């Protein structure tokens, strides 16, 4: 912040206020990594998705690179909700945490959400969009009826703000409308794209899990369009997610109506990427002679 030109970077997602519009996305930040995050530029971080019981995850290889993209099939490996909460308890954080809820049944989503609500998360993000699990995940998230049911049941057991992370496949706007009716407070648009790469020598998929989820710069224009479509059709706040690597990427989402943006793959590539993105946004606001980020949110003209 420089002299008289004090920039206001705070954003609101419904009733929730964040210090900055940048949020670390689910899956790329582990509580047990022992890495210190650049907390000054972060509004929040979403934890890895947790399920009721431990999940072993998918067989390796779990990672494969594509043109400007990252294909993964982790399969929601996590220690189960009790062990996870033990990690949360010992985690020294200097930024707000959002808990990510997973499950293989509607009932499991609700049980996990209820348990997470006992802890100091500022919101819960319901993951109905993981492409790498057989039950739950995309199977729930691409069907408006099931998606709505999940959110309705989770809504009953928690008073925390409820974000729903959507899958980019299927009729995204219909699912967005459905989960909004089900009681979601905000929508995250969107998770990875179901995708595939094949090793031509072996004539087999590169990933141990077969198919994977594609993230990174390769998918940014796709998710940006989806975010705009959802913004135009649904009243609750939307959060951009997909391929944010630079300040300009984040600004595209914000200008299209995102209340905040999530950083996923960029954080895996570079631990300092949030700082770079944050500085990019500040420089832009200064060049636009804007005093606050609110002045640029949802200002796209078609």
């Amino acid at each position: 912040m420089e002299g008289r030109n004090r920039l206001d970077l705070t954003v609101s997602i419904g009733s929730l206020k964040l210090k900055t519009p940048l949020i670390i996305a689910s899956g790329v930040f582990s509580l047990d990594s022992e890495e210190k995050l650049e907390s000054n530029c972060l509004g929040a971080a979403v934890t890895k998705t947790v399920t009721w019981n431990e999940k072993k995850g998918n067989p390796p290889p779990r990672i494969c690179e594509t043109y400007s993209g990252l294909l993964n099939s982790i399969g929601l490996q996590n220690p189960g909700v009790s062990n996870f909460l033990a990690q949360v308890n010992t985690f020294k954080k200097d930024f707000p945490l959002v808990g990510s809820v997973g499950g293989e049944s509607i009932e499991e989503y609700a049980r996990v959400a209820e348990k997470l609500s006992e802890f100091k998360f500022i919101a819960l993000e319901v993951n109905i969009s993981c492409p790498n699990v057989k039950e739950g995940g995309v199977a729930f998230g691409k069907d408006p009826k099931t998606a709505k049911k999940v959110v309705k049941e989770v809504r009953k057991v928690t008073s925390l703000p409820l974000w729903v992370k959507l899958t980019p496949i299927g009729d995204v706007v219909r699912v967005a409308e459905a989960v909004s009716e089900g009681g979601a407070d905000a929508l995250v648009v969107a998770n990875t794209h179901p995708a595939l790469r094949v090793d031509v020598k072996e004539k087999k998929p590169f990933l141990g899990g077969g198919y994977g989820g594609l993230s990174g710069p390769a998918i940014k224009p796709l998710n940006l369009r989806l975010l705009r479509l959802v913004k135009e059709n649904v009243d609750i706040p939307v959060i951009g997610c997909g391929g944010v690597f630079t300040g300009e990427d984040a600004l595209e989402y914000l200008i299209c109506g995102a209340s905040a943006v999530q950083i996923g793959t960029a954080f895996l590539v570079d631990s300092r990427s949030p700082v770079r993105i944050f500085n990019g946004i500040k420089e832009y606001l200064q060049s636009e002679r804007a005093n606050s980020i609110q002045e640029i949110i949802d200002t796209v003209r078609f």
Partner: protein
Amino acid sequence: MRERAEVIENFKVARNQFLLAVKAPHISKEVSPGQFVMIKINETTDPLLPRPFTISFASGEEVEIIYKVVGKTTSLMSNLKSGNSVILEGPFGKGFEVVSDRCLLVGGGVGVASLRFLSWEVHKRGGVQFLLYGERERENLLPLHYLFPSEIKKKVVLEEEGNLVTDFLISCISEYSPDVIYACGPKEMLKVVSSKFLGKVQLAVEEVMACGRGHCYGCVIKTPGGYVRVCREGPVFWREEIDWI
């Protein structure tokens, strides 16, 4: 620690294999044998991910890695000139535990480079060591006399001459009776080394990584207790920790 490191030199040491020396004072000070760094050679998104490389040697402000050209990143790396710079992050992972001063090092292919720093460490302690090194063809052979302490005994095995490094394992063990084996190389080789020696075995394993920092759980290996991260719980494991399928 993330640092922009200046390239000191980058030269061919064998067919398709290069030695990269960079100035990275913080990493050089912290690193121990078997640990690795993540290298990103430019800010573009293709290649997107940084790549993991074991530190092959560290001294003063310098660290060295030895790499084989296998893909886009390593191909671009082979063109680096002194004065260029790369982005280095690390050191990461759990390296070798020097538990004895009588050891056998078993290296397969460019994997032998991951044993080099360890070898110098053992040498410094006055330990006795034997190096068993296997390659496919003579042209691929790294210059051991230049890379490893000259005093240690070495056995080189060439596949093109009809032998596998593991064929000489038993004779090396009985001739030399080591307390511990340190190995790095292809999975098949590591499996055989694990099964043929009853003493202590430490294995440096490789897996495709995304972050290298313990976040993504992308680089896992199967253990009796489930999948664990190569970047954090490894890359060096005790034989008993790995569940070979």
